[in-house]
């Protein structure tokens, strides 16, 4: 029997037509599901009253998955079949995973995305994530008493196309209709923005289990705009655990740990870390499979010292995000803490010191993201008036097209707000050209070789026209989930081609960070290279156009001396085009232009006369 919830005025659903919508925080370490009931967002708990579902999947002999706490408890005695932190592998190839050797998994390299060999067979990260999502879906359906309309699933702001696509695929596999993918920090902002009706510029500092995300958001009149994002995909609570683990191993003088013992010590390290959030010291005891006994007392002071550099590591991306946004610490009106690791006292005090203010912590840092996702899901499902608020997100790297000479023409600039559609017109380069190849690139650099190639496709069937007559409009569309589709159509003929850009694997944020860094360092060099290529393209085009005109009308409209002057100017330009001096090319092109000025004028007159010759006199007079 369905239990009723209180609806917004005028938005009561028809019976049996409840728009049950949920928000899912699919975390590296923990996952949560939340929903809005009777106007309030709340996290849904399992039968035992637990909100956090450890993002751990253990594959059993019979092929069935065990998900969550039970799996987590068995991870030390069944490490090969117990997958933790699978989010790190989403949309990634084996070569993207630097610490592959340090994990207990048997990886299988596969085109696009790596696979994991378990006793239940070879699993893709998408399947493992789907098993986590299925568990959350089951929990939600039990709690809401019906079938779900859909879900908003959160992803790190830095997730690229491949990682977002993999997340969507996992949801589909779990039988969940994805209403939208939402950036985690943006979800946190929604949770805070709506609950507190905040205004101003905010910084969302999210230190979870495996990832660090920093986002700068502007909130005004209920409108959220993400003005900058940055982060480190390999920094989180796990690294703090690792430090304690290494300390235990060193202090106890242990050598040769089995995979199971290593897991055991790691989970004890995590417990110790969490205990130090409340207490000034904690005791770590264990008996290893070798019989070795571990018994150590770790003080908060030692722990803070062991991990001080990890905290420093969060401040770099924070500074970069501020710089990208063109803001100083003084411009930030509030700092929101998200992620379980922001519970640590030295993280809080470092953030407070950096921003010179106490961060906002009134919502549970573990739940903020799921709560915000639930609010957005509720709105998208139609249970809340959508004109109340609007959501804007940004793209992390510019998107563009290759143009003549290996140059990148940016179509959508970095940090453009999502969803976004931008069109740019291009034309054919050669007379009679019937196809155009379209090469989509991502990155900040000027030359194609320095950017990441996302896709190539061809627009065919362009009717033959003179160079420059075709009007090819290329449209880039990035949807609210950050997924790109590109379409091209020739406007005079209506010929069309479209591609959904799904790269086989995506850009890591290290790569994103490197590319941003590169674009800055190389800006000067790039400009020179760009100038040269541009001048070359212009020069070549001028040569081709001049040659075509000469072939057509040269014999009729030019005297021999005139012809010689033009030929000479063309030859000079040809020579310069082989060189590296863009100024010289420009000069040669300009003098060819001057040499052909008379000729061009005569051609124009001649073509007007030809056009008029075809008409009857009456028509002209009328």
């Amino acid at each position, binding site marked *: 029997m369905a239990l009723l919830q209180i609806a917004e005025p005028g938005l009561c659903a028809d*019976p049996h037509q409840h728009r049950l919508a949920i928000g899912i925080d699919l975390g590296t370490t923990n996952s949560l599901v939340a929903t809005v009931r009777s106007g309030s967002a709340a996290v849904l708990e399992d039968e035992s009253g637990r909100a956090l579902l450890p993002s751990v999947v253990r594959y059993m002999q019979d092929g069935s998955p065990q998900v969550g706490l039970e799996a987590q408890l068995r991870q030390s005695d069944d490490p090969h079949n117990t997958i933790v932190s699978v989010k790190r592998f989403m949309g990634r190839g084996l070569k993207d995973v630097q610490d592959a050797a340090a994990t207990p998994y048997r990886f299988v390299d596969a085109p696009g995305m790596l696979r994991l060999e378990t006793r239940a067979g070879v699993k893709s990260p998408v399947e493992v994530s789907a098993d986590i999502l299925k568990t959350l879906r089951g929990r939600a359906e039990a709690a809401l008493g019906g079938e779900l309309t859909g879900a908003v699933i959160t992803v790190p702001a830095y997730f690229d196309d491949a990682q977002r696509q993999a997340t969507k695929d996992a949801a589909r596999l779990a039988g969940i209709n994805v209403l939208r993918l939402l950036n985690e920090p943006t979800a946190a902002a929604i949770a805070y923005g709506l609950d507190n009706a905040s205004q101003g510029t905010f910084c969302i500092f999210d230190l979870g289990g495996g990832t660090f995300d920093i986002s700068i958001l502007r909130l005004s009149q209920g409108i959220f705009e993400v003005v900058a994002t940055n982060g480190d995909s390999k920094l989180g609570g796990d690294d703090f655990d690792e430090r304690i683990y290494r300390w235990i191993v060193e202090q106890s003088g242990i050598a040769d740990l089995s995979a199971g013992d290593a897991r055991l010590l790691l989970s004890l390290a995590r417990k110790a870390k969490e205990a130090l959030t409340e207490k000034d010291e904690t005791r770590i005891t264990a008996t290893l499979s070798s019989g070795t006994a571990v018994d150590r007392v770790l003080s908060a002071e030692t722990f803070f010292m062991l991990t001080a550099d990890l905290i420093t590591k969060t401040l770099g991306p924070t500074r970069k995000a501020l710089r990208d946004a063109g803001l100083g610490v003084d411009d930030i009106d509030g700092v929101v803490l998200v992620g379980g690791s922001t519970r640590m006292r030295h993280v809080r005090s470092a953030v407070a010191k950096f921003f010179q203010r106490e961060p906002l912590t009134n919502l549970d840092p573990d739940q903020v993201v799921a709560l915000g996702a639930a609010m957005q899901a509720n709105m998208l499902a139609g249970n809340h008036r959508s004109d109340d608020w609007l959501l804007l997100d940004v793209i992390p790297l510019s998107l563009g097209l290759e143009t003549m000479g290996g140059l990148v023409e940016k179509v959508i600039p970095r940090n453009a707000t999502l969803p976004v559609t931008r069109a740019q017109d291009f034309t054919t380069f050669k007379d009679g050209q019937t196809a155009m190849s379209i090469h989509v690139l991502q990155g900040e650099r000027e030359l194609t070789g320095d950017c990441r190639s996302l896709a190539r496709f061809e627009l065919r069937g362009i009717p033959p026209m003179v160079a420059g007559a075709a009007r090819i409009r290329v449209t880039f569309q990035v949807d609210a989930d950050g997924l790109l589709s590109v379409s091209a159509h020739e406007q005079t003929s209506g010929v069309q081609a479209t591609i959904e850009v799904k790269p086989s694997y995506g850009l890591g944020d290290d790569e994103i960070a490197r590319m941003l860094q590169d674009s800055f360092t190389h800006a000067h060099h790039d400009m020179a290279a760009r100038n040269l290529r541009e001048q070359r393209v212009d020069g070549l085009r001028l040569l081709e156009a001049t040659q075509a005109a000469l072939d057509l009308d040269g014999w009729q409209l030019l005297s021999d001396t005139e012809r010689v002057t033009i030929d000479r100017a063309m030859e000079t330009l040809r020579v310069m085009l082989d060189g590296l001096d863009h100024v010289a090319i420009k000069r040669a092109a300009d003098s060819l232009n001057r040499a052909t000025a008379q000729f061009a004028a005569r051609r124009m007159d001649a073509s007007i006369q030809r056009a008029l010759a075809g008409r009857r006199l009456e028509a002209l007079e009328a």
Partner: protein
Amino acid sequence: MAITLSASAADRIQKFLAQRGKGIGLRLGVRTSGCSGMAYTLEFVDETLPDDLSFESCGVTVLIDPKSLTFLDGTELDFVREGLNEGFKFNNPNVKNTCGCGESFNV
């Protein structure tokens, strides 16, 4: 003629109203639809309508239009937990049969 709230329902409604940050009470209603003739509606109230009848129960203002009241008179609204699920339930003495779903009924 009256509508009442159970203590747990009133408690929840007050909490939800506080979290929502606005609203003057709760509107109960009935509309024709569903597999068994009529269906309950349950909404927050931001403004009253001219015809509204108003009840006060455990400190919560309950509004209802006169037509709906003929089907809901004597109803107690309860808040219950069933397993993981939780929500409101109408205990309506006027109901002859329900479709088993709790949302639609006949009088």
